[in-house]
């Protein structure tokens, strides 16, 4: 039963990826300025990899915790990788940019980390393998004070916990 469930999940993942990636290619053609789409970061400057082809982070629009098409794509790769490496647990860190009040940003970071966590759960990863922590605006990766720097800092990062 476990086998058939995970098989069904995998099937669902593949099916959804096909649909979503079809949409995604359409969208990227309307891509605006180099490394940002709207105010969501789309570059790879700060991105690290959990494994070959598995980016560790996704980016958010200002004050938002909605996952973009690209973010969902990244998280599906993470889910696949987590499924293949069932002994690994992760912490999803939620972050905000410096242009918000500290306390609200702590809550916003938590909301972003949970958006990523929920998506991983939807793709079959057990909730007890994923913990979340919010750093609010306390741990930026880019210390500049400009829209591009801020876009790199509005992120959730999946980090190996063991």
């Amino acid at each position, binding site marked *: 039963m476990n086998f058939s469930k995970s098989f069904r999940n995998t099937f669902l993942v593949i099916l959804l990826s096909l649909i979503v990636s079809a949409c995604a290619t359409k969208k990227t053609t309307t891509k605006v300025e180099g490394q940002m789409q709207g105010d969501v970061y789309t570059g790879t400057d700060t991105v690290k990899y959990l494994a070959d082809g598995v980016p560790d982070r996704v980016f958010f629009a200002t*004050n938002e*915790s909605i996952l973009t098409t690209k973010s969902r794509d990244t998280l599906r790769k993470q889910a696949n990788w987590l499924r293949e490496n069932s002994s690994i647990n992760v912490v999803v860190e939620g972050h905000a940019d*410096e*242009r*918000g*009040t*500290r*306390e*609200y940003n*702590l*809550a*916003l970071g*938590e*909301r972003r*980390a*949970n*958006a990523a966590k*929920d998506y991983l759960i939807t793709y079959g990863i057990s909730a007890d393998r994923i913990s979340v*922590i*919010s*750093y609010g605006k*306390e*741990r*930026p*990766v*880019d*210390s*500049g*004070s*400009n829209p591009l*720097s801020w876009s790199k800092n509005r992120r959730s990062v999946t980090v190996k916990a063991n």
Partner: protein
Amino acid sequence: MIKIFNLSFLVFLFLITKANSLIEIDITRGNLDPLPIAVSPLFQNDSSKKNSINELKLENVGSEISTVVENNLKTSGLFNPLSKEAFLQKPDIAHLKPRFEDWALIKAQALITGKVTIENKKLKVEFRLWDILAGREMMALAFTTVPSNWRRVGHIISDKVYERLTGEKGYFDTRIIYVSEEGPKTARVKKLAIMDQDGFNTKYLTLGNELVLTPRFNPTSQMVTYLSYFKNLPRVYLLDIETGTQEVVGDFPGMTFAPRFSPDGKKIIMSFAKDGNSDIYTMDLENRIVERITNHPSIDTSPSYSPDNKYITFNSDRSGYQQIYVMKSDGSNVKRISFGKGLYGTPVWSPRGDLIAFTKLHKGKFYIGVMRTDGSGERLLTENYYQEAPSWSPNGRVLIFYRETKSNDKGEGFSAKLWSIDLTGYNERQVQTETDASDPSWSSLLSN
């Protein structure tokens, strides 16, 4: 008549002249014409000077105390302490009976005189406040304390003078707890720090091993509540700054943050985040009972009680964006009060009860402002690139907050400093700190 102050301060109230004075200061308006006041150095005799050097390594503790008073009065923006070089009368003689004509000649309207003695490891200070125009004494007080408390004596004198001349309690014998910051933005080291309101006597309460944020004083005791990332578990802690003992507040299965004491000091109110949703909770410090106050899928945070403990103001994005709300302290009757353009955060109820201070973000600028508790009468006091988190002086007349500067693309040029501003919007000043600083919280008056 003997009045006993806590913290080992004995105050002999030997005379307060009740007669109607000619001098008084209206602090409800921006004061562009501060009151000229002469602060005569407190007189110290020779034998006491010797003791002063032995006990405190200070040549003349009398003039040091008068400098503390002078700085406080000047910083308030309501007084203009006159240059000592213009003083015609010697401190000891002036303290007995000032020649009012001499002081009127240098345009002083009020005069502070005094005398200090250090004997048998006791510091005794007496001071008098004189009304120059009316030619009479307005107040006289004496204190006895341990010599190391000499700065506090200066703060208490400042508070008494402020109260006598403005009709409102002062805020000088107070402390600020804040977060000391060092290092690059991407790896900032933060420590809890505490200092006197005028920036002296800084002490660090944590070592910087874990991230700490948003310390707040208990208005009734020497307790502090703050957020610590100890063991990478962000939780609200309670710290006794006298004993150094600390404990986690409550047993929550997730991040607790944005703590603040109720005005009676009996509860901590804070946010608890779970599954992407932050709601407001309280914990009673006596019986440890936890109560949920809000239950809404939006972010509810930055709660602050009204001084009568009956209402709570807080920050929520339930309308789609950060706005300020007020509710009864049981969580009922939630009403949005901020309707201006932009986002609103960090509401803090004034200790006088009449106003709520806040941070506002509009078109890329940050403002510190105040509004009435129904949201009317919004006034923005200061605009800057980044500033937030106002905290009230105990008399509700001054706000302290932190301000950050913009960094260039390499991250250079960044700083975080404490600033204060009067409720009138005048008298904006940087508050000196040893390191970069943020998240200030103002204590209650330490004496009385």
